[in-house]
């Protein structure tokens, strides 16, 4: 009985999630048929003219996520090193639990803070006209993924057996040398993986980004490495999908197909980051 029930329910899990992927794929067929690969390369998204191009949104998504990770990763690594190597016993436990608690703050709360606090701060600090920028979204996301990043990186450092530290100290290396030359290389896979998992979360975050990014369509820089778009409004895949166009699009096959296509692209991006991250954990070197 319970065996059969268990099989039933785990099949249900598989069905639900494969249904999501199948749904996104079949519903987005119209856009693949009409646009094909140019869905990715077309610069203009303007549904009133039935022009659907993802380039600007993918650009925004990539920039925002890289910013978030670029800001959060060094701070998170430093914090993880401190918790793991410089704080002992009760202090470590306390910090660790605090971090996990803070990881649970809902994203809509960060969104609210972003709208009312961070936007103004960004505007003044960078003397911009408006605080709705990719940078704002990036910083907000960085704060949001920081607890996850710290917690996972600390796990990775903690996973390095003590004899590694002892062996390098026994050779006369200082604590810092042991951290840099032994601990970090030994925990490398775990650290990269925690970065990728955090990246996956950043790619998929919707609500907080939605509220501060400005949601300006079709913003692309003139040259690829121009930094100017960072301090301007933009659009990510998630902010498009959380917006009013979802309601508008339903019923118009092409528009709805474009929305589902954007969702499919977002899902693939997040899953790639996530699955590589998970595989790295599974294949951590034997110790």
């Amino acid at each position, binding site marked *: 009985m319970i065996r059969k029930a268990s099989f039933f329910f785990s099949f249900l899990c598989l069905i639900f999630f494969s249904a999501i992927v199948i749904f996104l794929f079949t519903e987005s067929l119209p856009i693949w048929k009409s646009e094909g690969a140019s869905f990715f390369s077309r610069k203009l998204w303007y549904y009133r003219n039935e022009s659907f191009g993802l380039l600007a949104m993918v650009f925004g998504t990539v920039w925002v996520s890289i910013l978030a990770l670029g800001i959060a990763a060094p701070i998170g690594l430093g914090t993880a090193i401190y918790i793991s190597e410089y704080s*002992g016993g009760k202090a470590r436990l306390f910090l660790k639990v605090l971090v996990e608690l803070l990881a649970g703050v809902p994203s809509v709360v960060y969104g609210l803070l972003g709208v009312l606090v961070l936007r103004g701060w960004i505007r003044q600090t960078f003397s911009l006209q408006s605080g709705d920028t990719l940078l704002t979204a990036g910083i907000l996301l960085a704060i949001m993924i920081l607890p996850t990043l710290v917690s996972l990186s600390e796990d990775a450092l903690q996973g390095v057996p003590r*004899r*590694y*530290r*002892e*062996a*390098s*100290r*026994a*050779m*006369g*290396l*200082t604590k810092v*040398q042991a951290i840099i*030359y*032994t601990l970090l*290389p*030994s925990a*490398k896979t775990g650290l990269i993986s925690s970065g990728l998992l955090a990246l996956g979360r950043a790619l998929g975050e919707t609500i907080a980004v939605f509220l501060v990014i400005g949601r300006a369509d079709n913003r692309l820089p003139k040259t690829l490495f121009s930094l100017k778009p960072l301090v301007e409004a933009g659009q990510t895949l998630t902010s498009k999908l959380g917006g009013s166009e979802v309601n508008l699009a339903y019923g118009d096959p092409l528009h709805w197909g474009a929305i589902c296509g954007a969702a499919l692209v977002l899902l693939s991006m997040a899953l790639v980051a996530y699955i590589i991250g998970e595989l790295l954990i599974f294949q951590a*070197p*034997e110790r």
Partner: protein
Amino acid sequence: MNNNVLISLRNVSVFAKKKQLLSPVSFDVVPNTIHSLMGPSGVGKSTLLKCINRLTDLQPELRVEGEIWYRNKNILSPRTNVENIRKKIGMVFQAPVIFPGSIEKNVLFGIKRMAPEKKKDFPEILEMSLREAALWDEVKDRLKDRAHLLSVGQKQRLSIARVLALRPEIILLDEPTSALDPRSTELIENLFVSLKKAHTLILVTHDKSQTEGICDSCIEFTWENGVGKMNEIQAACGTSCEEPTLTLAPKLETI
């Protein structure tokens, strides 16, 4: 102090917070010998070993009292430069410790950081250390390979080679063969005997036959009221010990 003594422990005792782990221990170690510490697990042998190169510093809950004299310096004094001491007193652990990277990188791991000025000698040091650790013939053609691919016995000898690369005077060995098969154990025991010519070895072991086979003197630890205690030095057959098994065995039996 006797000129022939390299390291001298004077009333060394270990506490964890308030609780005493080890009653005061005193003994001398003569150069170019293998000195073994034996006794039941948990009695504090490994901790005592770690006291000698101050690795106990890594566990803040431990407190060490007493004196350990080495070349007219008290190792336990707070003024001692720990890094220099550790360079001179190497340590090998129970399970082999292999850092990520190639065999070559592993051997040069310590010397690269402790004596970077000797860079031009690195190839020579690499070969010498591996030869000394009896590993050279097995790995000389694949020095750039990942060290993780070696067998456990080879890994342990690689760990020893890494310590040897720093040219230590003393090598502390914390149950170095307990994770190995008999064949590798024999290989490494032979290695220790040959290392005796240039180094002094202090060995923690559970294996009585190992002590009898290769050691020059032995200290046994026992429990007394839940605290580790050192018995008297049981055997010191000295450097002239040609057939240690024969001379040591009866004395150990009397314990």
